[in-house]
Every structure is written in C-alpha cells, then in structure tokens.
C-alpha cells in the first residue's frame, strides 16, 4: 500500500473550475473521505487520482512515484463505483478473478486469492452465482472483492453505498470499515453523506464549490468546523448559527432580549477579528444547549420532533433564526411556549460573518 500526494492539483473544464488548486497528503493505510454536496469537485478529484480524468495542472504522487500523466492501468489503483459494474453473464467467481486473469496470474494464485477475499467478504457461498441473481448488497460485496483481489496500491471508492437502501447502507458501512481495519489499505472514499463520512473516515476533506473547506478528523470537523459551510454541513441537524452583535464581552441577538456573555478565552480573539465590536455569528451544536429556567438565551418553540431515542426542539430566537435543541423525549413543550436555555461553554463557537471563517479561541496558559 502507498501514500497518495496531491500537489496543487487543479481541474478546469473550459471556463468551469471543477477543482481549484488543492494539496492533500494521504498516509499509507489511511481512510480519507472526500465529502461535499453534488458539484463540489469531490468526484473529479477522485477521478484525477485514478487517472480517469487528466489534471489541468499540478502533480499526483502514488507511493512517491509521479503518476500524474500515467494511464489508469499503470497506476495500480482499484476503483469501486456506485453501480457495481459487474459482468452480468459470468459468475461472481469469474468477475472477482477477472483482474488476475488479465494479469495472467497462475491458476493456483488466482484460486488462492479469490478464496481469501471471498472469505473476508463472506461471499464464499455465492461464488457460482451470476450477479443478476444477487441482492444489491451482495453485488457490491462482489465488486469490492474484485477490487481487493488485485492488492492494489490504493482503493478509490465513489459513493459505493449510494445505490443501496438505508438499512443496508448502515450495515455495509460497518463492513467496509471493518474491512479497512483488517486490511489497512490506503483508501479514498467519495460521498455526499456526512454521516457516512463521520462514521468511516480517519480524516475528512470537506469540499464546496471546487475548494477544500477543511481537512480534519471527524472530531475536528464536528467540534471545530473551519467555517460556516462546514458547521452547517456536518451534523444532523447542523450547527446552530445565530446572527448577533458583539460588544464588550457580550453577544446580543438583535431585536431580542437575548444577551450572552462570551465564555473565558473568547473576548480578545473576537475583538481582534472583528475590530472591537460588530456583527458576529454564534454557533453551537444541538446537544450543547440545555433548557434552563434562568438560561441567558430564549425563544419560542416552533416545532418539536420525536426522533426515536430523543427529541429535537426547534426554537425561534428571532424572526430569522431557528435553533435546534436536542432534548430528552420526556420534555415536550407545546408550540408557542417561551423557553430559556443555556449553552455548554466548552461547546460555544464564534464565526466572522465577513469571511465566514471560525474565530480561534485563545489557548489557555
């Protein structure tokens, strides 16, 4: 297995900038997820790594070898698509062994490797079936087996679970993660589903409008999003973001009585960023808020939703901003009730509305 390095890699389709120059180093054995909405450039990036798409400029290194201008077949990467791309007229076994037969491996090697991957993916009993007779999940397992059997330098996966129904996606997600833990294969995985990205990635590259917004561990992108886009995109619902005005250590939501004193360590970086006082965005995750009679923030219950194990209460803090508060199922306020709440000071974040970037908290001595 190998490292993958992208150095100032860029892609233009005519006037359209599909991927703006990006740098990314993926460690040997790492599972990196490219995450973003459709059209953000994630699939184009993956296709450039595979060689299915040429770069407009920049360099791609695979295991230290410059592969920028090599044909896909010379790069030694394996691609798994959303649609299984299996040959319908031959058995699962022949589908899996196809890349090895193309490489003219001996029959012993082929049989041995097919046996290994089939055991790993628990599809030994399906090897003689044709793809058409298999369920969606089993077809995807066969496609994974075909990718694995080659022992490539890296795996590239383009929304491999996108075509599966929700239940199945959940269990395949765990299976692919398990497979990765067992194999430690360098993997680049593309998805638009933030839950999948969080659940599977060692690191996540969040992309939007052809630009990398943040690269970080699930923990980092969740707790410390680099900007408003990441804050909104990660989480379900996303981070609560309330437009407010900052002055002398206090955040005020315009048109309301809401006044929130910023926790320790925030006043000076906020002051420096926005130049004393002015507009700011207050951010907090739904689970960071607690309903509390003397809480400094308040609003009117707009709706409340049972989501299974817990509820989410939607509260109007002013005419434009609805915040989402995760609560116990037992807590049920009728629509229109005025509620007060507080925020866990460790989980408060601030953003500069001018450039949408997160403000960094002062590091305590």
């Amino acid at each position, binding site marked *: 297995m190998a490292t993958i390095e992208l150095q100032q890699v860029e892609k233009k389709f005519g006037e359209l900038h599909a991927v703006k120059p990006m740098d990314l180093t993926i460690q040997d054995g790492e599972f990196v997820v490219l995450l973003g909405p459709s059209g953000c450039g994630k699939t184009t990036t993956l296709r450039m790594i595979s060689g299915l798409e040429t770069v407009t400029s920049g360099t791609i290194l695979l295991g230290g070898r410059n592969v920028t201008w090599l044909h896909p077949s010379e790069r030694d990467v394996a691609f798994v698509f959303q649609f299984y791309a299996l040959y319908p007229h031959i058995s699962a076994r022949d589908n899996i062994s196809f890349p090895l037969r193309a490489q003219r491996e001996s029959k012993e090697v082929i049989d041995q490797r097919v046996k290994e991957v089939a055991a790993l993916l628990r599809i030994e009993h399906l090897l003689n079936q044709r793809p058409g007779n298999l369920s969606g999940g089993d077809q995807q397992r066969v496609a994974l087996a075909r990718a694995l059997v080659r022992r490539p330098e890296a795996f590239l996966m383009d929304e491999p679970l996108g075509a599966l129904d929700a239940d199945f996606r959940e269990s395949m997600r765990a299976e692919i993660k398990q497979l990765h833990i067992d194999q430690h294969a360098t993997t680049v995985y593309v998805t638009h589903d933030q839950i999948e990205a969080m*659940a599977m990635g060692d690191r996540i590259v969040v992309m939007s409008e052809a630009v990398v917004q943040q690269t970080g561990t699930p923990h980092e992108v969740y*707790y410390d999003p680099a900007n408003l886009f990441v804050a909104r995109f990660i989480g*379900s619902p996303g981070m609560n973001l309330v437009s407010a005005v900052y002055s002398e250590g206090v955040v005020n939501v315009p048109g309301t009585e809401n006044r929130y004193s910023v926790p320790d360590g925030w006043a000076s970086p906020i002051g420096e960023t926005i130049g004393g006082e002015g507009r700011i965005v207050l951010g907090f995750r739904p689970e960071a808020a607690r309903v509390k009679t003397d809480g400094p923030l308040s609003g009117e219950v707009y709706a409340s*939703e049972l*989501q*299974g194990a817990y509820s989410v209460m*939607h509260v109007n803090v002013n005419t434009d901003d609805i915040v989402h508060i995760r609560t116990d199922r037992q807590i049920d306020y009728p*629509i229109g009730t005025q509620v007060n709440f507080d925020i866990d000071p460790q989980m408060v974040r601030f953003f500069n509305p001018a450039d949408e970037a997160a403000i960094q908290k002062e590091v305590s001595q």
Partner: protein
Amino acid sequence: MSNLQLQNVTKEYPGVTALKKVTFDVQDGEFFVLLGPTGAGKTTTLRVVAGLTKQDEGSVLFDNESVDEFPPAERDVALVFQQYSLYPTMSVYDNLAFPLRSPMRDLPEDEIRTKVEDVAKTLRIEHLVERKTAHLSGGEMQRVSIGRAIVRDPRIFLMDEPLSNLDFKLREALRVELQHLQQHLQKTQGSTTLFVTHDQIEALTMADRIAVLNRGRIIQIGTPEDIYDRPATTFVAQLVGTPRINLMKSQREDGTLRIEKSDLHLPMPPDCGVPEQVQLGIRPEDINIDPEGQFSGQVAITEPLGVETVVHIRSKEQTLISLIPGLVDYRKGDEVKFNIQSDRLHCFDLDGIRVQME
C-alpha cells in the same frame, strides 16, 4: 375538514395482492402517516382514497359516508406528490390561485387574493409570489405545491412522499415547516392529512399516529411512541430507529435469558411469561457503556457520527450495536463493560410477534 375511514379495502392486481383488508380511521384534524417499504401498498391506499384507483372490495368513508361512487374531482381531496406538478410558465401567485379560479367556485378576485396572500405568508413564500415557478429551487417548489393544496381548503390532504426528492438538509427543514404548518392549520381551517412515506424519521417526527404497512397489510397502528417503544412485530421493530434494533435469538436458562452465540445472560425471572425461545430486541441506545457495567465484550468498530458514536461490541460471535453519547474513541479489541436497560427489552416469539413481559 373531515374524518376518513377505510373498511376492509382490498385491491388485487394479476398475481399480487396490493392491499388486503386494510382498515383504519383518521380523525378530523389528525396527521396520519402510512409507513412502509417500497411495495407495501402505501401509494395504492392513497390512490384509493383519492379515487384514482378503484378498490376491489371494502369502502372508503368521509365523515361516515361512503365516497366509493364519487369520482376524484367530487371527493374534494388535495394531493401533493413527490414530483411537483406546478405550471412552469405561471407565476407562483397564479399557481396558488389556480384551484380557486375554478368556474365551480366562482370566487371574486379580491377574495382569491386574500386567500393566496394568507397561504403565502403561512408558508413563508411571500417574497416569491411574482416569480415563475420554473425559477424556484426544489424546496420552494414543494412549498408552493403544498400551498396550492392548502388554499383549496379541501376535506383531506393526501401527500405522497412530498419530501423524498429534496436533498437531506432541505428535507430536514421542510419537515419542521410542515409540522409547524400542521399545528397552525389545526387552529385555523383544520387539516386531516394522510401522509405516505418510507422514511421512518419523517413518520416518527410528524405523525399523530402511524400505520405500518407491509405487503398490503396493516401490521400496527399507533402513536410514534407506541411504534418505537412497543413494536408489535420484529418487522416494525427493525423499520424504526437508526441504527437498527439489535435482534438476537435467545434462550431461557436458569432464571436468565441467554443470547445465542454470546456470553451474555440477562436476568429474567422464571414467571415473566416469556417463552423458552425468543428473539430478543435491544435498541442501541439502551446499551450503555459503563466501567461498573454488568456485561463485558470487545470493541469491534466505532463509528463516530457527531452527537453520538456507534460502538459495535462483540461477545463471542455475537455483535451488539450500541449508541453512546458524544464522540468516544475505542480501538478494535478494547475490553468494555456495559449495562443493558432491562426495562426496555423487547421480546418476540419465533414468528416475530411481540411477547408481553409480565
């Protein structure tokens, strides 16, 4: 608004029974959700209510009177579909006004204006009324479709997966909007709604009551709490909740229930009314990792989702899925201790029918 009753509605197509003796009541003003997988018969049920499909047997009643002989137009129901069916060259205003301009209604234009403006305000699309619908986003178009249904003040709203074509974030937002709207309408014009979805979160979050359908049959009717906390069958138990409920064959053994292929013995008094062999259901959030925990196992994988982490815990060959608040970090093979909330266990017999524990 009206109440709605289906009595033993059956519909057969060559080789398939689409609906088999489907019976339920929707109260005046109720938001009633039909939940089930593809092919369960949800859309067929909706079409029978609308009069677009004729049932083979059984009756549909509005306000206790049969509408079986009424063509769709005379049933006075408003349909909202997954695909928006707006007139692309007309403005939002004209789309909303369209049903009111029917010659059958013969409404003066200023009354139409008042109604349209009211609805636009309720749905927060006032700023869009002059625009052509072709220039709207998916979420905006679906709001207009809903607005066009509301403005008619029909006897019943029929909604067929209206949120399914929207992206996830939008779906989340519109779900909240619909719920708010529902409460608003209940106070003003009333709003009996039959809402079809395959999405369990939509059902749990929006419904007053849910009917779970599978292969043309009703499996369970109840409030979201009933469905989630007291699923009638293993099918219902697996249909709601993410991650899915743990479902494991288990055996009574000396005052315990032993989970097959594992070291886990749950205390279970001999007189609890549970048969010798059951399928035991444990929701992932009812497994709590606790250093003092009664049970132990090894971590297989962890999936940090953000607000919580899915931890797969192995005991021998069995894997239990647990849901732990916050982002926790365990490595494969870590030993963990955990508790299982004994008052939240679900037992089903081998046919998948819920067993009441005493």
